[in-house]
């Protein structure tokens, strides 16, 4: 077992900036990331050894990443890339898979696990060819491939236009964009963007690009069903009113080979749940956020959070939050005085408040409108892993079981390989129709080992692992 001062889980903007801040103050830092290169999802680059003349997508945050990288080169930070964290135990010991069954015992931990795309269930969303917008971005940015055939982009918000433009510029056959909001709603929500002329210009630029290519944008429209026997062949869209309630009789059929969609992001809480940090359910985000204090320390002493896993705020907020954590860790480990840490942190908190508008903007754009639940039918799969349909869940709820842990035990929903990441958001929407707001906010679930799938043979070695740490794994 290796002892370290400070272990950062996640090598995105929040994790990297915390690592730099702590390391520059004399803390010994290890950063663990699953990808072969640092940067997380937002700074994802072309996979080595591919070579490109210019980036395949406009990386809006390239400058921030360059700054972080140059700071990293000035510090002595240990990076464990291609490494999966699969367990966090009660005494803060971290189990990683590379090398197999290694344990690290840090004094302080930062969990910066980011966010993932809010799942929205509709009939046929499990068909091959239906994927997340982020999935398409990764294929393009890191793998140098574009979807073949007719591509339909759906969901809501600026990311649709950005991705559609990137796809068009790389020769993909984008046949249309289904935007859930109306043009007026979209414009109203875009008003705060005057604060960031850069973003506003870019938005208009992408929008104009689609117009120029004569790509139809269907406003007030959402995917009702994805059809096909073995893979996606056709998409049925439907128009909706201002509350996103589908209007019967407005269906439109579109032949498509690939459908990518995005309805915003939900904080990732696999590790904070596993570490038994306390959480609050946020029905607006359709997910959970860990509870944390002004120094981003969770309910578990010595475990911190930063970035989108604390609520969706984007790159700039993640970087500042990371700095606050890095400074706090340095202070708690005795590298700087409390007075010095306070001084630095109050400055950072001021800077953070300047970016709050962006967080509010994102929250407004992606605010959940219950009308979307009207798309669900009895036969719609809610839990992809265990193939649990709405019918089963409704029956359980009608029998009076209205809590996530009850429904999980009775239906197996959320017990599959994704560990509830892709069904709990929909379930929260469904429960929102039955439970009061106060009840909904106190809903929670417990995390389970391993956070990422591992070969079973790993666990045959778990006994020796337990002896090593002299502790039961977290349950």
């Amino acid at each position: 077992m290796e002892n370290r001062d400070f272990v950062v889980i996640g090598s995105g903007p929040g994790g990297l900036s915390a690592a730099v801040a702590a390391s520059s103050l004399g803390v010994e830092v290890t950063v663990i990331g699953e990808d072969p290169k640092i940067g997380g999802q937002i700074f994802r680059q072309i996979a080595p050894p591919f070579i490109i003349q210019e980036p395949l997508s406009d990386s809006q945050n390239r400058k921030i990443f360059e700054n972080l990288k140059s700071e990293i080169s000035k510090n002595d930070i240990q990076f464990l890339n291609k490494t999966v964290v699969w367990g966090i135990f009660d005494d803060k010991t971290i189990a990683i898979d590379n090398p197999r069954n290694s344990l690290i015992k840090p004094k302080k931990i930062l969990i910066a696990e980011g966010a993932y795309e809010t799942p929205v269930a509709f009939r046929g969303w499990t068909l091959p060819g239906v994927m997340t917008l982020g999935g398409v971005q990764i294929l393009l940015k890191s793998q140098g491939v574009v979807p073949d055939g007719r591509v339909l982009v759906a969901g809501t918000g600026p990311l649709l236009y950005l991705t559609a433009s990137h796809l068009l510029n790389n020769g993909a056959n984008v046949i249309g964009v289904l935007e859930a909001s109306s043009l007026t709603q979209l414009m109203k929500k875009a008003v705060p963007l005057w604060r960031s002329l850069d973003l506003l210009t870019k938005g208009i630029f992408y929008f104009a690009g689609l117009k120029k290519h004569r790509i139809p944008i269907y406003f007030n429209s959402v995917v009702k069903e994805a059809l096909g026997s073995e893979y996606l062949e056709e998409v049925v869209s439907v128009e909706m009113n201002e509350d996103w309630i589908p209007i019967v009789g407005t269906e439109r059929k579109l032949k498509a080979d690939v459908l990518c969609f995005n309805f915003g992001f939900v904080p990732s809480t696999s590790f904070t749940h596993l570490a038994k940090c306390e959480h609050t359910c946020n029905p607006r985000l359709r997910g959970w956020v860990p509870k944390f204090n002004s120094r981003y320390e969770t309910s578990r002493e010595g475990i911190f959070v930063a970035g989108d896993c604390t609520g969706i705020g984007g790159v700039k907020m993640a970087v500042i939050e990371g700095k606050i954590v890095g400074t706090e860790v340095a202070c708690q480990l005795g590298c700087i005085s409390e007075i010095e840490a306070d001084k630095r942190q109050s400055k950072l908190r001021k800077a953070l408040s300047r970016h709050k508008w962006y967080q509010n903007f994102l929250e407004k754009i992606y605010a959940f409108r219950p009308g979307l639940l009207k798309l669900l039918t009895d036969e719609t799969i809610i839990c992809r892993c265990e193939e649990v349909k709405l019918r089963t869940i409704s029956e359980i709820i009608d029998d009076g079981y209205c809590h996530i842990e009850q429904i999980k035990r009775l239906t197996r929903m959320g017990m599959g390989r994704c560990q509830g990441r892709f069904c709990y958001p929909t379930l929260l929407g469904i429960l929102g129709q039955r439970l009061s707001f106060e009840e909904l906010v106190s809903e929670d679930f417990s995390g389970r080992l391993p956070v990422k799938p591992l070969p079973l043979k790993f666990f045959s070695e778990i006994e020796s692992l337990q002896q090593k740490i002299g502790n039961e794994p977290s349950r």
Partner: protein
Amino acid sequence: MVRRLEKVKREEPFVIQVDNDFIIAYEGETLATVLLAAGKKIIRRTLKNKSPRSYYCGMGICNECLVILENGTRVRACQTFALPFMKIRTRE
């Protein structure tokens, strides 16, 4: 389902075995990319209903793209890089 962009410079291609087929791969590509580029739209079938699944989240958290390596280990195709002489199975 996907097409390789010509403007991306790749190293020499190699071949991997997928079930009974041999398909082309490049260093740096994930198994998911290799499968999709070879036109293999269905990556796996579910145990319960045998329903077809494929690349979905792309970032290693949905576990829809699991494939089986020669040693029997299931791995996420979107997180596993293709290597020369690799043999994978997409069904039990």
